[in-house]
């Protein structure tokens, strides 16, 4: 009896809750750390990037408008679904990053735990960074954090899964929607994450995952007038500078890459949560009666 031939997976993009191939019809070869062919990944085009922005914008109102409690549940659901597919991700991360099974397992566990961590943040960040301001006058005013909008995320190049999760989860935890460019050489865990997100109650369009050449896809995103912020973590210094210049055109919020490589296993803090928040301050008179007798 001959040995069973395994079924290979056709990796696809994740855009607007669907799994399109690149509209360009292009793919590129993805191999493991030893050069062995793993799969053909979609080579996204500029049009794919623009389509993803449209999907992210469409999803923004509903996601930003959902309660923080609801968003927390959805993020936790991602962790649940990932836990069930742990073995798959351990295999993919081991292949992508050349890690041993046990090291890859630790990375995947950390990534799952990170979703849980951010799930807990959704309904707390408002209390931590917002609040009532003690104004010197008969007014009540309240500062509340709100999502910036559509965030383009250049995922880290090296940490194909833990790094990826660490840059996506804070963006969507606070109500933004994301267009994510996966690690250029190791995009497969990101594309598989799309399959998890699709079955995790995350509304279509909230996270959109593109694979391909980071510089090629990032350029139209940085210049896009309907993108509100860009996270340049996955860009090298030259690319980051060019993209930041393009982003100035509509004054996008820019998160610059770290000068030193980030250790994704450490406590992330609230930094990435607040990077993509606006602060809105709402004033109202308290009705104190002034000398004029006016109640406004």
């Amino acid at each position: 009896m001959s040995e069973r031939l395994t079924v290979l997976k056709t990796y696809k993009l994740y855009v607007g809750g669907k799994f399109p191939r690149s509209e360009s019809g292009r793919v590129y070869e993805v191999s493991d750390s030893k050069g062995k062919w793993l799969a053909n990944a979609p080579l996204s085009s500029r049009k794919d990037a623009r389509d993803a922005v449209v999907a992210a914008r469409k999803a923004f109102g509903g996601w930003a408008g959902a309660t923080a409690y609801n968003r927390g549940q959805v993020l936790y659901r991602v962790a649940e679904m990932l836990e069930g597919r742990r073995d798959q991700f351990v295999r993919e991360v081991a292949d992508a990053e050349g890690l041993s099974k046990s090291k890859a397992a630790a990375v995947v566990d950390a990534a799952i735990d990170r979703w849980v961590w951010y799930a807990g943040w959704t309904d707390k960040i408002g209390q931590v960074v917002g609040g009532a301001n003690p104004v010197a006058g008969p007014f009540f005013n309240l500062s509340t954090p709100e999502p910036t909008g559509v965030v383009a995320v250049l995922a880290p190049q090296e940490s194909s899964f833990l790094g990826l999760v660490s840059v996506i989860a804070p963006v969507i935890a606070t109500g933004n929607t994301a267009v994510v460019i996966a690690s250029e050489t190791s995009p497969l865990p990101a594309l598989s994450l799309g399959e998890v997100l699709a079955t995790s109650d995350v509304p279509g369009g909230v996270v959109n995952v593109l694979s391909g050449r980071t510089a090629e896809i990032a350029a139209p995103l940085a210049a896009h007038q309907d993108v509100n912020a860009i996270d340049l973590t996955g860009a090298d210094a030259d690319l980051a500078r060019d993209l930041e210049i393009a982003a100035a055109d509509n004054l996008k919020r820019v998160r610059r890459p770290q000068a030193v490589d980030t250790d994704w296993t450490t406590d992330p803090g609230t930094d990435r949560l607040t990077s993509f928040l606006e602060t809105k301050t709402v004033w109202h008179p308290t009705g104190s009666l002034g000398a004029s007798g006016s109640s406004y």
Partner: protein
Amino acid sequence: MTFEYAPAPESRSVVDIAPSYGLFIDGEFAEAADGKVFKTVSPSTEEVLSEIAQAGEADVDRAVKAARKAFEKWSALPGAERAKYLFRIARIIQERSRELAVLETLDNGKPIKETRDADLPLVAAHFFYYAGWADKLGHAGFGPNPAPLGVAGQVIPWNFPLLMLAWKIAPALATGNTVVLKPAETTPLSALFFADICRQAGLPKGVVNILPGYGDAGAALTAHPDVNKVAFTGSTAVGKAIARQVAGTGKKVTLELGGKGANIVFDDAPVDQAVEGIVTGIFFNQGQVCCAGSRLLVQESVADEVLDALKRRLTTLRLGDPLDKNTDIGAINSAEQLARIKTLADTGEAEGAERWSAPCELPDSGYWFAPTLFTNVTQAHTIARDEIFGPVLSVLTFRTPEEAVAKANNTQYGLSAGIWTEKGSRILSVANKLRAGVVWANTFNKFDPTSPFGGYKESGHGREGGRHGLEAYLDV
């Protein structure tokens, strides 16, 4: 019955303006390296007030070096000591507030009523507020030991010269940074008087440096490689240029830029209060306010009533001598700004909007523009999209709250908005949906040092004021 007002001028003898001023670098007044000077005039009379040294690139470099040198000691001071300097400055501002109010009115053209009752109290309050943070930074939520950035290069506009100085300098010093500040070329005087306040307060040399000058000096300052933090308040176009300039550098940047604020009046709004709020929203400081409520969105069913009341109210506004305590509307800051307002108002007419101006006599000298409103304005009109930065209100109507929100958000800006309604749930739901950094409900143009201020979208990056305002000056 018409009331006649006797003139009630504030005395200008409380302020002693020297015939010339230098740049303030490293605790000393100095000539510009290339000897250049410019004149500052009173916008209400075109009288030359003083001759000012004009900073160039060499002066910027010298000031940054002085600030760099001062940073070492200033940042190492215990927070409690820095706090005391800031408290001293706040107290001296209070003591000299009458002098500074008159000075600001002379140099800027805004009514004494506003400099005396709005600008100066807020200027002192900002220094008091941030003084208290200087020894409490570990409690601000940015980690236990947040560090200052270094030298802050700050460029401020002419609409609130001393207030913008306070917004920039108070948090910078409280957090341990040193400062090089460029005031606008049309309003350099109050910043130079502030230099004297720094002297009186005994502030160490080089901690605050003031460089009056033009845009080229501002550009040289924000581009200087030894500046760690750039803070700019001004036009969106310049803000974008700065954002490009700092790309790829380690400089932290905050930008407070333009706006096209929507002031939304619902049919259940208290009309008299709403009219006062509309007037405050667009005619405060001659409309030269980035967060002005320059687009009035009024519910169709009450549009006629509100407009009638508004026009009636505008006819009672008194335009004229800014030093007169009865004056509501002062002079436009410069001939250049007046020309820009005129051009945009003419464009409004040319595009078919209907123009109405309050009937008031304009003085013969100086730069003046009567309070003006446009009706029959659509969202496509230039005057509904571009920031005019003058006393010009564009009136649009709406039928449903959804339409009001859609129209309010239909702009590349996102700085301010107003809501007028008696219904609490409507205030909250509309405020939630507006993409603006400051929302005033049943009030407008209120400011306080404890409250974060800043924009969404192309109105800029970051917040000034409150705990949030510290972040811009800390390495977090």
